[in-house]
């Protein structure tokens, strides 16, 4: 009976001992206010949350398959990236700026994230959320003219006002001089 009790205690300690391991939840999001057009930049933001109680090692984000090079070009950063370690209960982000060059419809699926719970451990996989189907159409000529563009109009108005005010001031100045001269000449008659 005593031996059985000791064995049970040992088994329980094994079950209830906390093993530190990380767990990644990955969010993939597109940061736009309106649907992007062809030849227009848009940003994809990846956020990796480590919701486990231990760090994760050798984290590799892979999403190049969703953005083939013949259709998309990246500005400033690469799509695939890696981190050496993400601590427990912390997160990491990665932003990519892309541009699509041709008209078409694409399903932007989930990204794949590979990571390890120990430095030399096995590779584990996590998949991100997905964006879904996006239709890329060319920007119509009317769209840019309808948007406010306040700063461009202000610059245009200031320069136009300067160019128009100078002849007006010249006209006013010469008006006074003309009246004086004409009066002098009429008096002499």
């Amino acid at each position, binding site marked *: 009976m005593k031996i059985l009790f000791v064995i049970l205690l040992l088994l329980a300690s094994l079950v209830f001992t906390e093993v530190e391991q990380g767990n990644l939840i990955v969010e993939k999001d597109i940061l736009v206010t309106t649907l992007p057009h062809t030849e227009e930049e848009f940003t994809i933001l990846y956020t990796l949350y480590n919701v486990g109680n231990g760090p994760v090692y050798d984290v590799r984000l892979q999403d190049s398959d969703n953005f083939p090079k013949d259709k998309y070009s990246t500005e400033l950063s690469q799509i695939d990236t890696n981190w050496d370690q993400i601590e427990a209960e912390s997160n990491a982000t990665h932003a990519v700026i892309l541009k699509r060059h041709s008209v078409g419809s694409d399903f932007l699926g989930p990204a794949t994230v590979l990571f390890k719970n120990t430095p030399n451990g096995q590779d584990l996989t996590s998949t991100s959320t997905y964006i879904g189907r996006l239709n890329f159409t060319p920007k119509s*000529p*009317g769209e*840019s003219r309808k948007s406010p*563009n306040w700063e*461009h109009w202000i610059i245009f108005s200031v320069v136009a006002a300067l160019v128009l005010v100078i002849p*007006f001031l010249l006209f006013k100045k010469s008006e006074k001089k*003309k009246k004086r*001269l004409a009066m002098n*000449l*009429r008096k002499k008659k």
Partner: protein
Amino acid sequence: MSNRNKRKKKQREERAFLEVEREREQTLRLRKPTTKQRMLYFFVGLIMNILPTYLFFSIYEMDLIKSLPLFAFVTIICSIILSMGYHNVSFFLKHRLIKKSGVNFQIKRTKKKATGGEREERQKKQLESTITTQAVSLSLLYNSLFYLAIVLIFAFYITWIFQAPTNYILSLAVASSIVTYISSTKIQ
């Protein structure tokens, strides 16, 4: 009619004909702009064309480097057309202001120099140059406002349906042509 009367009548007719010829020559002389005036009109026309070019580059997002030859060509041609319009209006305004001033600008050629005649001639020249400045500045103001208004109406309400380069060419060319055509009808 006696010979003496006939001779007097002939002399009067000759004098009247010479007056008309002199006035015509003066008008033709004034009709051609001076080099300074030409440069001023072209410079102001260039600024007036660069302003809508900036709008097309910023609002319609035309690529500056790719469209630079188009911008340069259209700007220069439209500036030349616009400068003709500036001169037409300033020529018309100058004549009107001269008539309004009530001063006789014709230089009297006398054998004897009258006292104070030199001073009067100097004042007449000053008055003429002041009237020229007035006419030129009024022409620049009026034509520039008119031109900008037409360009904006065309670029954003009439020809906006076309692609940006076509819209640019049409709006600037049509606006400069309208301004110059209307200014030439004033002279006629």
